[in-house]
């Protein structure tokens, strides 16, 4: 599904990623753990094509396509989704219009007709339930006046609407209470299929207890220094990141 080779990247001339190699296969959930400033968010931003980051070396191939040559919206149409660490508020743009524009743009890219209003609203209703998102929120402007937890739930709701094949959860657990964390994680699990995969970025084991990743990577200083199974989360929880610093 996703193959990252020798990826170097910088922002404002400062090198953040120093040769990342990462392969994620269909159906796999990988977790990426690491200290603040290690480059976790940089990696996720580069996968989705944030214009502030510059790739200086390396490649990312997504289902056979050269991802780095594609515009952010093209990557989205190809099936890539990012659950933002800090979802953006967009006053004046209703969730409904926003979702409709996003969904129909994707359908257009796939050669499909736009969804009619009835089917679209029905879909909104159904998918909302996955993360128990209130109808009132769906009628508001995008993320405006949403609590931290609601914003994160809204991210997973959008994921449910857009049905990506590869999702990145960038610290989706940050700022969530226990109940909200459970709702978000269970929502994500409901959306998993053998054809979808994900990269989960987190500091904590708590989220991973729900998501049960297949593989965990440790990112330090812009490089993946350790890769292992679910036990890595426990190692980090018990002894921190120092054990991985050579």
């Amino acid at each position: 599904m996703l193959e990252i080779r020798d990826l170097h990247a910088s922002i404002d001339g400062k090198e953040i990623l120093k040769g990342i190699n990462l392969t994620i296969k269909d159906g796999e959930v990988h977790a990426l753990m690491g200290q603040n400033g290690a480059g976790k968010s940089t990696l996720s931003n580069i996968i989705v094509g944030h214009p502030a980051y510059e790739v200086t070396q390396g490649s990312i191939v997504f289902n056979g396509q050269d991802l780095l040559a594609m515009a952010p919206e093209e990557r989205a149409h190809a099936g890539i989704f990012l659950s933002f660490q800090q979802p953006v508020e967009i006053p004046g743009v209703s969730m409904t219009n926003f979702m409709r524009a996003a969904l129909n743009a994707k359908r257009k890219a796939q050669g499909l007709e736009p969804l009619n209003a009835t089917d679209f609203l029905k879909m909104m209703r159904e998918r909302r339930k996955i993360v128990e998102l209130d109808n009132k929120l769906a009628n508001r402007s995008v993320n405006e006046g949403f609590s931290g937890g609601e914003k994160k739930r809204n991210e997973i709701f959008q994921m449910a609407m857009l049905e990506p094949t590869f999702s990145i959860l960038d610290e989706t657990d940050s700022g969530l209470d226990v109940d909200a964390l459970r709702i978000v994680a269970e929502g994500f699990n409901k959306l998993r299929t053998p054809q979808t995969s994900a990269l989960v970025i987190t500091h904590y084991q708590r989220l991973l207890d729900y998501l049960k990743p297949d593989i965990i990577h440790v990112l330090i200083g812009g490089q993946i220094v350790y890769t292992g199974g679910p036990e890595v989360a426990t190692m980090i929880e018990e002894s921190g990141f120092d054990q991985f610093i050579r």
Partner: protein
Amino acid sequence: MNNNKKNISSSKTDNSSPSGEVGRGVAAIQYIDLYRECRDMIAEHSASLLNAPREQALADFERLGFPTQKEERYKYTDVAAAFAPDYGLNLQHIDIPIDPYQVFRCDVPNLSTSLYFVVNDRFYDKALPKAMLPEGVLVMSLLEAAVKYPELIGKYYAKQARTHKDGINALNTMFCQDGLFIYVPKGVVVTRPIQIVNILRADVDLMVNRRVLIVVEEQAEACVLFCDHAIDDHQFLTTQISEVYIGENAHLELYELEETHVKNHRFANMYVDQQRSSSATIDSITLHNGLTRNRTDVTLSGEYAETNMYGCVIADKQQHVDNNTLIDHRVSNCQSNELYKYVLDDEAVGAFAGRVLVRENAQKTVSQETNANLCATDTARMYTQPMLEIYADDVKCSHGSTVGQLNEQALFYMRQRGIPEAEARMLLKFAFAGEVLDSIKMEPLRDRLHHLVEKRFRGELSKCEGCRLCK
């Protein structure tokens, strides 16, 4: 019409004219000469009430000339340059061949209005809508009203729009021969909106000096929608002076929508006087234009009056939109609320100067003024100047303005969800302007404007909808 119009160019070459003093500028002198040459003709095709203030207006205009950019209220628009070219004037009241019902199809579906047309400066009375107005309500030619209802016109005409300080008022008062009169007598509630479509129509470049007088007496209510269109591909220059009186406990909603073309120049001065416990909603929307300068002065003369003033400007290419407002709190316990939003693209220039004046005895005034602007390109320019002048000590007032670009984070967020960049930009601009459109109380008009603004941002509205040119 060509043969009968008075063209300014005939007088422009006469540099030996006694009025040719230095200082007022060539642009002003040609109008002074033209007036002197044609004053009898102007008067002959108008009414004595409209003729009465002309000579004083001439004296004022001779003294003032066109406002220069050194004057505080005209800082952002070069008036003389706009008036300098040769325009024809239809001073002889020649009939313009037009059937507005043919060239204009109403742009606002589901909006049931009493529809009237003003062609250039003349009220079109050849085919009036079937009388849907309550008894006593008048929507008619100002010229005709000045003859038929001299007491009414004499009481209100040229009282607020004084000529001694504003060169454009003076020029308009010299030349205007007709226009529109709307009268809603005491206690009458006009439920159906009155829609006035101003059509600019000419076979040559044309100057129009139009006058509007609106009187809403005590406890009366009305809603008036003006739509400005220019249907011919010529240069147009319009001066429009409006005087609006809102009596005690009366309520007026006034919407002005400009949808003209890039060769149009609009200088519109509006004066509103509000009596005790009255309310006014004044919405000015510039959707497409050439050069526009709107001045709106509201005087709160009676206590407990409320003013809501909104403006929405969408400009691109080299369009120029300058809104200049004054809300004068003369008495206590009044409220005013002002919100103007601009979205500027390409090399468009926007200006907003809004002054809120709270006089010494205007205690308990509540006033809020906001101007927010979006410059979507590096080359678009916005000048903003919110002004708050308070001489009373027990008031609640605020003012502020912002100029910014599209939110890059929001833009990226939308693109990550698959919304193409151009569409995302459009949605953000639309969302920004939407706040002003939401203030429109008339629902079909609000819906229609949302639609028109969206089309405008999509670039599908390059001229104006509903006009012959665009069919």
